[in-house]
């Protein structure tokens, strides 16, 4: 297993520290992700606790669980999972993110196994996890079914798969592309390709075809008055999240 310390070139550390600071700056480039993060974490932690019978008010409630975060970026999900006691692997296809995430984990006093790669690579290696976090990735991949099948293979029987993405309709086009990319400039233009967006029914269908059992779906709803996100039972019109399990 690669660890945080032995893969970072010391001469590059200052640069990676600066990039880590950028990833973790709540008012900076990744502000939209930081704004959404508490809401995502509330969903993830509640689902994991329910699936594995853990009590979130205890010390290290996720101890003994092996969690994979696909598309880990700077570690915005990996660090909370590690802090809750899980054994965490973060994987990202963008090699530049990995040392950045490693440097920040070290500053936070956390041990996280960060790797360059894809879900398909890891599935081919035969890795197995209790939980796979698949947040805001599926709308970017070329072959969603192949990708979700790899995610399924990465789960132990009875494992939990959490997947969030963006719905495909006029509102999501207005919000995610016109709003977030062009008007608010929250995200670089071209981050999203609207035709790749997936409706909740299509995602449930893909999950089933990939060999998973869909269990739950909720919306992440942006409130322009409080300027914050909340979980909604009914409004899945733009951002939404699903939970699915791998049959035992």
């Amino acid at each position, binding site marked *: 297993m690669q660890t945080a310390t032995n893969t970072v070139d010391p001469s590059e550390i200052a640069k990676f520290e600066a990039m880590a600071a950028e990833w*973790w*700056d*709540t*008012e900076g480039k990744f502000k939209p992700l*930081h704004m959404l*993060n*508490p809401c995502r*974490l*509330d969903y993830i*932690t509640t689902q994991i606790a329910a699936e594995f019978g853990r009590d*979130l*008010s*205890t*010390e*290290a409630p996720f101890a003994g669980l092996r969690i994979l975060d696909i598309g880990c970026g700077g570690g915005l999900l990996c*660090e*909370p*999972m*590690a*802090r*809750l*006691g899980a054994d965490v692997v973060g994987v990202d296809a963008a090699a530049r993110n990995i040392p950045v995430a490693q440097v920040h984990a070290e*500053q*936070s*006093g*956390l041990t996280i196994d960060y790797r360059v790669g894809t879900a398909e690579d890891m599935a081919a290696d035969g890795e197995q996890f209790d939980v796979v976090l698949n947040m805001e990735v599926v709308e970017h991949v070329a072959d969603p079914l192949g990708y979700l099948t790899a995610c399924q293979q990465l789960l132990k029987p009875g494992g939990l798969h959490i997947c969030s993405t963006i719905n495909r309709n006029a509102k999501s086009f207005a919000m995610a592309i016109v709003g977030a990319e062009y008007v608010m400039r929250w995200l670089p233009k071209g981050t999203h390709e609207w035709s790749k967006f997936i409706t909740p029914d299509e995602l449930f269908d893909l999950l089933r075809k990939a060999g998973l059992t869909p269990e739950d779906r909720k919306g992440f709803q942006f409130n322009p008055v409080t300027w914050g996100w909340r979980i909604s039972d009914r409004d899945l019109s733009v951002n939404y999240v699903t939970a699915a399990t791998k049959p035992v």
Partner: protein
Amino acid sequence: MTQNDDILIVGGGLNGPVLALALAKSGFGVTILDAAERDTHTDPDFDGRSYALALASCRLLAAIDIWDKIEDQAQPMREIKVSDGRAGEGPSPWILHFDHREMEEGPMGHMIEDRVLRTALQDAIDAHPAITHLTGARVTAQEVGPSGVTLTLASGDTLSGGMLVGADGRQSGTAARAGIGRKGWGYGQTAVVCAVSHEKDHGGIAHQFFMPAGPLAILPLTQRRSSIVWSETDARAAELMSMDDAAFLDALRPAFGSFLGEIALTGKRFSYPLGLTLADSFIAPRIALVGDAAHGVHPIAGQGLNAGLRDVAALAEVLADARRRGEDPGSAGPLGRYQQWRRFDTTTLAIATDTFNRLFSNNNPALRLVRDIGMAAVNSVPGLRTTFMREAAGLTGDLPRLMRG
């Protein structure tokens, strides 16, 4: 895991211990550093104030298991009568009246003496296994790192925690060391505070008389006693403080009126200069400010402590939520949420109490007419009156969970 889960709180008065107890309930380890010695707080002569605890504040104290220890020494406030006094003439008949029977939640609040609340809090933090209480601990330096804060004490000892809370009052050293500036102004007014016993029962009614020099509040305490908060010009307050008891009572009687019968002093008089301060920010990296360290309002509506306790409940909730979802509680995300929640609320309160005081501490006939009409208007519209009462009870706005009861 090497990360320090502990939260350091500088300031051992009222907000600091309440926050410590609330955080400990959510699983945090807490260290309170108090520059004063323990005896200072429990000495009955330390602070002569009494607090009008809003209903929301009482609920917070109940949630941290303090309320049941002090409830029998708290006087429910059932009605509030407000009147416009004229210099040398005693107060005019009340023109604004709030009665708890118009509000479903019960009494608008409770009067509690500082020494009672303070002692209960000191006992509770000393008994709590997750709270370390350091007294006589003066902070000389604070250093913020990427994942925590280290404090150096006058003794040379150092302490580290994941974050630092400044609950150290208007002269907050925590804020100053963090480079947080503050704006503030005095009013040229000083509050003279004392407790009196009286012949007749107060019936749980609080009175506020707006006199030209400043407001006079008569607030019901237990056992036919009332707490007096008499705001006067600095010069007049100094005079009042220098008088002997008999002369002071002679000065008080015309303003106080005779509705409670004969009055007598039950202890020392205390004086507090009035002013308003507001920190430029309630947060800095790894640091949050609560209570007077963040905002000191004119104590005209008894809202100083209540506003501080709202900070405490909001911060405790934000940090507990962060911990439950695995976030680093002292990081920028949670602290930003606290600031966003509280700063607007307290700035509004500061401006409102300032405007209120300027409007009422005045003998201008035109202003007098305006405020008389204003109070009559509030009084004649039951819905509006209930809104004011709910505001005074601290039940409006985005209420922290610990205050919802």
